[in-house]
């Protein structure tokens, strides 16, 4: 039996259920010598990149240790408990990717039954549990959700808001309010600042932070973001001059091409920052983003070359993942950049990208 685990409110119950099922063992579990075995696996994405990743990896290991302790508490002596981090060297983006690594693991250990925690959310802020279950079933595995009492059923946008989220958002809003008021320190500004910051934080603290809040990481990312701005400005000035040249040139020497770039970035914020930076520099314009695949319209060859060389992508990687992420191959070297010759081509390609995501691009 294989149980994918991740941080969730019903994890403890899921573990208990899986152990109970394995012990009562009706032959459906995957122990090849008749001894019931439960495999707890934690799929992790992008944990090998930079300083964010190290934390993720440690947390996942701690989680697995905790799960193993629980499982031994619940089970009897015959029960074998295995834990593993899976998908480590790969790019996990959609439900198919998660299903693939889980199914691969199940095949390795000879398991054919998967118990899923109904509150498990591998994709962070994206609800992919259902499609992942469907994809697992397609691969010939028996999938079932652990029956648990759910303390709360949250809406899609609402993640677990807590005091930390509230306090952070309150702090940011309050500082911004004071900034607009010029840090006057007047009683009026302070009182109205507290009032509006409370209002903002109360309404939005469950929406603003989709991932769990890591203040240290957030702080480091902010510092690197500040370092990123001058670089972005430099790129903007450069490409502005290039585009101004072709626009004012009598013969209008433009060569517009639609291109497709698969970025080596993970998650909503990094992709948004990259897509916006690309659009902000004249000469390149993000038309579509599907997963990490971006369709970018380019106006002149110089802008296209810059895009394929991935300088902005590298800078965005630096902002989010720190210095180690700087050592990355360019999209051109990875084979992740190409010119789209016609529209149908672009759409057809989109389907193959998901399953064929190369694992070697993370370094």
């Amino acid at each position, binding site marked *: 039996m294989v149980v994918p685990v991740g941080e969730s409110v019903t994890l403890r119950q899921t573990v208990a259920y899986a152990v109970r099922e394995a012990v009562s063992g009706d032959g459906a579990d995957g122990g090849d010598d008749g001894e019931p075995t439960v495999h707890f696996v934690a799929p992790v994405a992008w944990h090998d990149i930079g300083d964010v990743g190290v934390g993720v990896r440690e947390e996942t290991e701690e989680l697995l240790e905790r799960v193993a302790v629980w499982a031994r508490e619940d089970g009897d002596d015959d029960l074998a408990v295995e834990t593993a981090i899976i998908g480590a060297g790969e790019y996990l983006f959609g439900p198919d990717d998660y299903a693939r690594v889980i199914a691969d693991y199940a095949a390795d250990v000879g398991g054919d039954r998967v118990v899923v925690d109904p509150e498990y959310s591998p994709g962070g802020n994206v609800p992919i549990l259902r499609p992942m279950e469907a994809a697992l079933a397609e691969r010939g595995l028996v999938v079932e959700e652990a029956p648990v009492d759910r303390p709360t059923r949250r809406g899609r946008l609402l993640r677990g808001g807590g005091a930390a989220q509230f306090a952070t958002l309150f702090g940011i809003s309050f500082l911004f309010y004071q*900034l*607009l*008021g*010029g840090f006057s320190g007047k009683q009026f500004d302070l009182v109205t600042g507290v009032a509006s910051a409370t209002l903002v934080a109360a309404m939005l603290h469950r929406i603003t932070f989709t991932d769990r809040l890591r203040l240290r990481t957030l702080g480091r990312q902010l510092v690197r973001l500040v370092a990123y701005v001058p670089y972005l400005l430099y790129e*903007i*000035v450069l490409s*502005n001059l290039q*585009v*101004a040249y072709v*626009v*004012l040139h009598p013969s*209008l020497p*433009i*060569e*517009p*091409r*639609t291109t497709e770039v698969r970025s080596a970035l993970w998650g909503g914020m990094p992709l948004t920052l990259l*897509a*916006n*930076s*690309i*659009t*902000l*520099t*004249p*000469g*390149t*314009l*993000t*038309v*579509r983003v599907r997963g990490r695949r971006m*369709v970018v*319209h380019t*106006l002149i060859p110089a802008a296209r070359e810059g895009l394929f060389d991935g300088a902005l992508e590298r800078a965005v990687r630096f902002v989010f993942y720190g210095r180690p992420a700087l050592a990355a191959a360019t999209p051109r070297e990875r084979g992740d950049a190409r010119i789209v010759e016609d*529209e149908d081509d672009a759409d057809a390609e989109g389907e193959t990208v998901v399953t064929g995501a190369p694992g070697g691009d993370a370094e």
Partner: protein
Amino acid sequence: MTPLEVAVVGFLLGGVFFTFVTAVGVVRLPDVYSRAHTASQTDTLGAGLTLVAVALVLGLETTTVKTALLVAFIFVTNPTAAHAIARAADEQGIEPWREDR
């Protein structure tokens, strides 16, 4: 003219230049996608250089901070709007213009 005035006039001229380029570009460029490229010139350097000039005139004041924030917000909203237009065009099935077809 004082050096400050020279700098202010220089930045203003730069801002006017890139805004002018955008105006020319919107007229000359062939389709919606390529026009979106040149539109971002006004939003970045056109508005950016002009607001730098404004900040220089104001000197160190609260309003200057707001000027900087203005640039920051333009830098967030411009690509979002440009992307929305380009994406809408793509969804309408508008094929990008090419010089070789």
